[in-house]
């Protein structure tokens, strides 16, 4: 059932076994997992079924760190940020879960094996199943192309799967609407999670609409699933008992904000012989109704040996150089690329004799290189409350996204590795476009991946939630979404947050019954 909170009488109080704050990817996944379970569920969604600028403006905030838009990187409507999701899917790597002595604050409370049973159902939910994320033989077979064995030992191929992308609201809305045990409350802004007097439990949710109505939801259990920025904000705003905010007795809520630094224009590659360069390395390949593309990721042994953070690179064709096309002498980049292609032709093609005519139709191609990387969990990279207020008189977020030198050096090391792997294979040559590597490539942005602000740890001094995603010291409050990631890895987070939410659903089913 869908209910617009603006249509309810003022001061309406709703009850359910479970209240889910947020109708985005995590909230919808959790509600679906509980459909037909006999557990009554109320999903409290701040937005409506369509985007509304006034509602969206509630996501605006102050930014004091790296240039970043708190409102432009998330969406406040049913379906949440899946409504602008790019659809990139890949699980985290095993090493991402480990405590690595060169990565401060690293280590999940469990290994990847804990999530593996959930990755395939998660792949089905985001409509990319069956997942063949590391299965090069599969992609060789379906693409009918031999994939290169990377030779330098630094990088490996993995396969990003592309969701359509699944817009969770429109894709699963009707299903939820039909579920007898689920109510979706729209246009309902949670202004506070009200704690019990001893702060060990949640009594209810205070809700306001932009039209001025005030409601409440009471439940036995609560799951905060409002996104990596808003989860922290709502906990910080919920300070009726714990002045620092609910679950924030150890000053961890909002800290450790992580993104995947995304960069472009920092490097380009030239490739002379497309027959050596399988299609899946440069563009999406369709197989069994879905598409995938190869990503270049560091090997785990290389990460360990050189004490590096994770990273991922992908390439796309940016231009071609037909053999009969005259170079643009006024374009220095154009000249440089052609020079490299022509000079290294003997090393980059299967034409053994460079004095023989090459393929008449191409001198080669050049590719743009895109990359993103893991950042070290950093307590100074954080979400806090601003002195500015939104239309509901609530403190806006103040975001201070920070990166470290370790993050930057790690990224450049991996970029260098990419050049070596291509050279070792005789595939291509890479040109680094950043003259001064003492700074990040510009423009530097994020992937709209908000992670770490309610991080998971079995130690309350190191994490806001425990291994079951329950807020430490609060018996009936859980958090879902990428805000619980203790480390980010380099894979896009959606698939993993869906898998984690399915795991949480299993836990809650056992606990609520």
């Amino acid at each position, binding site marked *: 059932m869908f209910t617009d909170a603006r249509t309810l009488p003022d001061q309406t109080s709703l009850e359910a076994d479970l209240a889910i704050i947020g109708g985005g990817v995590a909230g919808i996944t959790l509600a679906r997992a509980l459909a037909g379970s006999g557990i009554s569920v109320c999903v409290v969604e701040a937005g409506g079924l369509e985007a509304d600028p006034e509602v969206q403006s509630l996501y605006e905030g102050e930014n004091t760190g790296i240039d970043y838009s708190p409102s432009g990187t998330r969406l406040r409507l049913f379906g949440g940020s899946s409504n602008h999701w790019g659809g990139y899917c890949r699980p985290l790597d095993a090493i991402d879960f480990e405590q690595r002595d060169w990565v401060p604050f690293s280590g999940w409370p469990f290994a990847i094996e804990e999530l593996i049973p959930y990755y395939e159902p998660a792949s089905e939910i985001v409509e990319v199943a069956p997942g063949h994320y590391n299965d090069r033989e599969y992609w060789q077979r379906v693409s009918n192309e031999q994939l290169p064995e990377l*030779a*330098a*030992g630094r990088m490996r191929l993995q396969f990003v799967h592309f969701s359509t992308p699944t817009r969770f609201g429109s894709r699963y809305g009707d299903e939820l609407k039909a579920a007898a045990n689920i109510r979706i409350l729209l246009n309902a802004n949670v202004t506070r999670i009200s704690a019990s007097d001893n702060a060990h439990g949640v009594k209810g949710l205070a809700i306001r609409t932009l039209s001025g109505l005030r409601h409440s939801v009471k439940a036995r259990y609560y799951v905060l699933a409002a996104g990596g920025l808003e989860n922290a904000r709502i906990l910080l705003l919920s300070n009726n008992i714990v002045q620092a905010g609910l679950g924030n007795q150890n000053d961890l809520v909002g800290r450790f904000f992580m993104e995947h630094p995304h960069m472009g224009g920092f490097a380009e590659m030239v490739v002379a012989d497309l027959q050596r360069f399988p299609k899946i390395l440069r563009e999406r390949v369709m197989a069994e109704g879905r598409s995938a593309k190869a990503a270049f990721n560091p090997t785990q042994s290389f990460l360990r040996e050189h004490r590096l953070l994770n990273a991922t690179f992908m390439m796309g064709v940016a231009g071609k150089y037909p053999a009969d096309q005259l170079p643009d002498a006024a374009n220095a980049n154009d*000249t*440089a690329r*052609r*020079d*490299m*292609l*022509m*000079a*290294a*032709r*003997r*090393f980059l093609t299967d034409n*053994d*004799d*460079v*004095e023989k005519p090459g393929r008449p139709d191409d001198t080669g191609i050049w590719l743009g290189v895109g990359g993103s990387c893991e950042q070290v969990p950093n307590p100074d990279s954080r979400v806090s409350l601003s002195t500015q207020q939104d239309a509901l008189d609530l403190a806006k977020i103040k975001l201070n996204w920070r990166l470290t030198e370790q993050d930057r050096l790690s990224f450049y090391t991996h970029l*260098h590795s990419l*050049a*070596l*792997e*291509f*050279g*070792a*294979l*005789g595939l291509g*040559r*890479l*040109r*680094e*476009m950043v*003259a001064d590597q003492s700074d990040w490539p510009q423009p530097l942005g994020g992937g709209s991946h908000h992670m770490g602000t309610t991080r998971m740890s079995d130690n309350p001094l190191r994490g806001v939630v425990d291994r079951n995603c329950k807020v430490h010291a609060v018996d009936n409050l859980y958090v879902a979404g990428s805000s619980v990631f203790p480390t980010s890895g380099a894979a896009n987070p959606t698939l993993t947050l869906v898998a984690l939410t399915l795991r949480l659903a299993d836990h809650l089913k056992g606990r609520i019954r």
Partner: protein
Amino acid sequence: MTGGHRSLLSLCGDHRCTRRTFLLSALLSLTAGVFGSNRYSLANSGPERCVEPPWLRKTIADRQSAARIGRAYLDAHPEYRHCHALLTDMEQTLKRQDASVSLTADAEQTAGILQALLRKEYARDEVVSVAGWVLSKTEARLYALVAMIA
């Protein structure tokens, strides 16, 4: 025919031959033998002028392109502004990779050996940066050699 078989003194030709020039010429002559060329030598005076080894043409087809990259390398590495230094370095690099490698006068075979060497250098991170390009050391020096010949 290899340069190593030639009279070392003949390398000085009709011009005055200092001890240093003589030794350099001798070294070049030996190197030329390794790389299958007898046609490069020091110029008699002024800047060094190189004569192209036959395998180079088999290896680098577009000389203008390679020369532009090679000049960028030489700007950053002036110590390699000598054919013999470049060739000696390449020879030593090859021998370090595989002492049994026997470079012959066969240009095609030499080009193949160089191709394999380059790949190994990339795999071992034996690279330099040339105008932003990440190039194997030997590859960069090949282009530098072309620049000096062109």
